[in-house]
């Protein structure tokens, strides 16, 4: 799903770039939030909760709630709702608390 028309906001046509999610090659608009690109590809589950392992994804959309955390280019706990998509990004679902190495 991608909003094309909106009464207030405009969405200029952007360059489509390749990225991966859990190894799967996908395309999204350069500069849009990572999570928006995932949604446009039909991917809504981005991680799982720590204790009960329930599905988690886009929730607050302003970088506050920690619901959309994923590992991006090896860095854990990236807020995908406020992080712009770049060419070649490697996004992986984060299960558990994230690993730094």
């Amino acid at each position, binding site marked *: 799903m991608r909003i094309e028309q909106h009464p207030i906001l405009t969405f200029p046509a952007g360059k489509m770039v390749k990225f991966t999610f859990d190894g799967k090659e996908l395309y999204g608009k350069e500069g849009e939030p990572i999570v928006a690109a995932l949604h446009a590809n039909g991917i809504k589950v981005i991680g799982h909760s*720590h204790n009960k392992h329930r599905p988690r994804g886009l929730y607050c959309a302003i970088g506050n709630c*920690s619901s959309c955390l994923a590992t991006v280019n090896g*860095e*854990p*706990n990236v807020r995908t709702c406020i992080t712009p998509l770049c060419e070649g990004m490697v996004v992986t679902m984060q299960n*558990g*608390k*994230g*690993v*730094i*190495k």
Partner: protein
Amino acid sequence: MNKSASVVIIGGGISGNAIAYELAKRGQKDIVLLEKKFLTAGSTGRCGAGIRMQWGTKLNCIMSKYSVERYEHLNEELDYEHDIEFKQGGYLMCAATSKEMEQFALNVKLQNSLGIPSRMITPQEALEIIPYINTDYMIGGAFCQKDGHLNPFHTTQAFANAAQRLGVCIEKFTTVTGIDVDNGKVIGVQTDKGYIATNVVVDCAGGYSQYIAKMAGIDLPLYSQRHQILVTEPVEPLQGPMFMGFAHNIYCQQSPHGSFIMGRGDDEEPKDGRITSGWTFLEEMAKNCVKLLPLLKDLTVVRQWSGLYNMSPDKQPIYGHAPNVEGFYMASGFSGHGFMFGPVTGVVMAEMILGLSPTVDASQLCFDRFEKGQLFIEPSVV
């Protein structure tokens, strides 16, 4: 609220609750504990929650060893339904200068003679313990596996629950407004919820100890200084021990939950009782942490806060009674290490108040040491 009590304890942190429990365990009845807000609202709930036995004086080694050994079995001893989360991941003390190394060597010798299993380490050995230390800033250090970290909220609650089961009355959201003294003797405590007649008051009000003492006409040579601290988002377990450096001005550890908790001191911090938090700390802390533990650069800070160090002239607590006001006891001036000394504070104060022979002789930490000029100098204190 009770109209009278045999003992009124002022302060609902680790010290107050431990003293209440130890008094009740020894058969003391009619104990009331007063807390202005909720339990752990003051310095206890704001502290870094580390505990170490790596001290440079015999008494501090003995007191901290006693506390660690009690914490090891505290869940069972207090029959606590949750977990105080005591993690003995160790303390890695980083030496930045040869002077620090010399001091650590003396400390380790002393600690070993008292049965504390600490040892000197080289930078190479430090890397085996925390693989991402930047050893450019480290010439050596000391390590003790039995040191660690525990949850200040659960630990205090464990003491409080056990004390209440033994009949201690805990009054929260009750502010002490005055202490009545007649003929040099404590006769009662005024609060915003009523008056309590008592002949024994124990001041363990942390950062507010000196103001409580003032109500009884006692001048404590203490001041309260702000110290800041931060916590990051949790990540999977990575760091076993607390990393600590005096010259580097850092302590940094990973809690069992996965978050990193770190802090530093700053002489410029205000001493007016404020517990706000600022950008300067965040910037300096981040710089220092990334310099010494570069891997942690990707952690996201979620919160920072501050609390009060109740500082005494020699950065050591006062365990004692006021010389000119009978019945006024104090466990104050912990200078940043009150939480880790919780169990020993409880025992020392309870035995002092009840006139029992001491399990741990802490008489060097009496109130009149300042007047007599017998300061208790601890070389390894923040």
